[in-house]
């Protein structure tokens, strides 16, 4: 029979909350390097829907396809350390919006980049992490290289647990040095070579509020300095600085009878380009059996347009852009992840559909003809060396 619950009984609550402070019940909070090495591979396919003739000059066109392969290795070393290596390869091809013009009927329509853009990206990241009784600290170095873009980044992060193990404080700082040399050919570019620096800081706190629930809250700040204009967009001129703030919160609650956990996450973004956004994520993690987990999820996103966004870019202004990613819109994405453990292996598959529309947003603005819907599929394999 299932244990009956009466969490409102004050005596039981007092006994339970006092018991849970003991170390035997805090295995989840104990910071220790992973016990076993693990390796994982993931393949994902990202496919944007074609743009229709109604939205583009010159008839419908294919948009981007991206294939991503990722490899991950994590191993404990010495007594208190772990090392992780992550490698990712991306192969992109297709066409993207070049600029927006006015059709004979007065509607804005996209002119696509025409010739297919091909690019590949390789990213390698190495993270070393040190574990101590009450927390851990990690240092990671990342190098990313593609035909036209190079990025070098360094990040430091740390987490510290309170004495009772109920609260975790975390923080991170990172710096990235990026350089772009646009590929000449498919479209004329608006620079031949440029660079930017990205500085970012993050702080967060996670608290166990009951034996079945966790809340977290985080704040981050990112400062971008350098060439922020999209070199492949015909009508694009953006400020050389961007200051971004993000406030986020999350709630996890475990439901014993359903063997499930509800994850609700919210994120608010604001920057000095007048872009604001709200993101709400809801996921239901259902342990169908000890080996099989299903996770349906849904996400809502809504964005306020940048102050210099116009479908027909205002080129007499200092800054202008017709990039749909800076327009006002709302988006839903939804999907399912499934995973199965077989001895030391774990196989996972996931599929996600993303759809967007100006009218779904809470902020009004001109609807960009460049808005894109996409599908994403993935399959992953993980192995634990034990």
């Amino acid at each position: 029979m299932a244990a009956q619950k009466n969490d409102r009984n004050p005596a039981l609550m007092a006994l339970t909350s006092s018991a849970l402070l003991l170390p035997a019940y805090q295995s989840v909070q104990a910071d220790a390097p992973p016990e076993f090495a693990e390796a994982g591979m993931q393949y994902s396919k990202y496919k944007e829907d074609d743009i229709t003739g109604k939205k583009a000059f010159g008839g419908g066109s294919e948009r981007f396809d991206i294939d991503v392969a990722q490899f991950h290795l994590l191993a404990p070393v010495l007594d208190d350390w772990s090392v992780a290596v992550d490698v990712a390869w991306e192969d992109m091809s297709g066409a993207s919006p070049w600029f927006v013009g006015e059709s004979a009927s007065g509607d804005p329509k996209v002119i696509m980049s025409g010739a297919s853009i091909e690019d590949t990206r390789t990213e390698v990241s190495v993270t070393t992490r040190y574990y101590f009784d009450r927390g851990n600290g990690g240092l990671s170095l990342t190098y990313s290289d593609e035909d036209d873009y190079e990025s070098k980044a360094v990040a430091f992060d740390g987490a510290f647990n309170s004495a009772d193990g109920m609260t975790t404080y975390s923080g991170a700082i990172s710096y990235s040095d990026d350089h772009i040399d646009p590929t000449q050919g498919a479209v004329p570019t608006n620079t031949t070579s440029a660079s930017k620096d990205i500085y970012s800081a993050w702080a967060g706190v996670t608290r166990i509020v009951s034996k079945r629930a966790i809340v977290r809250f985080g704040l981050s700040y990112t400062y971008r300095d350098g060439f922020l204009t999209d070199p492949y967009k015909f009508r694009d001129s953006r400020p050389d600085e961007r200051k971004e703030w993000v406030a986020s919160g999350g709630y996890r609650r475990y439901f014993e009878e359903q063997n499930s956990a509800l994850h609700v996450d919210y994120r608010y973004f604001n920057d000095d380009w007048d872009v604001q956004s709200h993101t709400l994520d809801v996921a239901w993690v259902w342990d169908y059996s000890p080996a099989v987990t299903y996770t349906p999820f849904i996400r809502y996103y809504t964005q306020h347009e940048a102050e210099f966004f116009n479908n027909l870019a205002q080129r007499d202004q200092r800054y202008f852009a017709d990039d749909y990613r800076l327009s006002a819109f709302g988006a839903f994405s939804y999907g399912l992840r499934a995973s199965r453990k077989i001895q030391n292996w774990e196989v996972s598959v996931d599929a996600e559909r993303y759809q967007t529309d100006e009218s779904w947003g809470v902020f009004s603005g001109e609807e960009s003809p460049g808005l894109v819907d996409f599908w994403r599929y993935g399959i992953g394999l993980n192995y634990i060396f034990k």
Partner: protein
Amino acid sequence: MQRVDHSFKAMGGPARFRMEVDDVGLADVAVTAAVAEVERLERKYSRYLDDSLTSRINRAAGTDEVIPVDAETAGLLHYATTVWRESGGLFDLTSGVLRRAWDFRSGRLPGQSEIDAILPLVGWDKVRWDEQGVSLPLKDMELDFGGCVKEYAADSAAAQLQRHGVQCALVDLAGDMAAAGAPLHGPGWPIGIRHPRARDSAAATVILPKGGLASSGDYERCMEIDGVRYGHILNPTTGWPVGGLVAVSVLADQCLVAGSAATVGMLKPASQGLEWLEGLGLPWLAIDMDLQCHGNLLEAGSH
């Protein structure tokens, strides 16, 4: 999936792990870690071992020496304080000293003067402790973690098994049970609860899917004089056997909480003990002096 059993002796009684595992080699590592955990707690808290922390605390009684404690011990002291408060002072880790007056093998009742001489040494409120250390103010005072350490060890051993990759395990430390995951086939681990007066027959069978089950009873040590039963559960304020329920079993998320809930049920007069158990809202079974069974464990379809 294979069934693996491991039996050993710990904390003065039989101990047993029942597991279902994919990989027997992995289970060996897990069992070694879990047995080591039980032995660690025994070495640290047993009052029978001279170099245990408990013995050091007791030897320093009355000397003003503060014995330093670690976070785990401070946690147990904090927990003991909570149970003492919630039980209205009945659950008291200093009451063990009353054993000096009560010898249940002798068949002899102690004189009131013997009890009165010991009672001043009993009282959780006399213990001085904080996160750093503990001291007993009076010579001959005794601290005995026996009232909670075996249950805590069952939980901690189950956590060790789980941490080492065993997903289905039942830890049984002489009747204090902690389950880390239910067996693959079936809703949980079937456990027979012994009838208080019939050594080998079960009063009920319960299914434990996870969490803990603990039992407390006065059938282990008692004596009968002139037709009156004197059980070994002593009221810390009077020094006399409680004369309440004769057996209580409770299921809770932790064996530790189940054990305290059952012990407090035993420490109260029978009718108040039943009220306490009913009020907690946990699954429970109690047997009174007339061998009547009470509690929702029976109603829930156990037999």
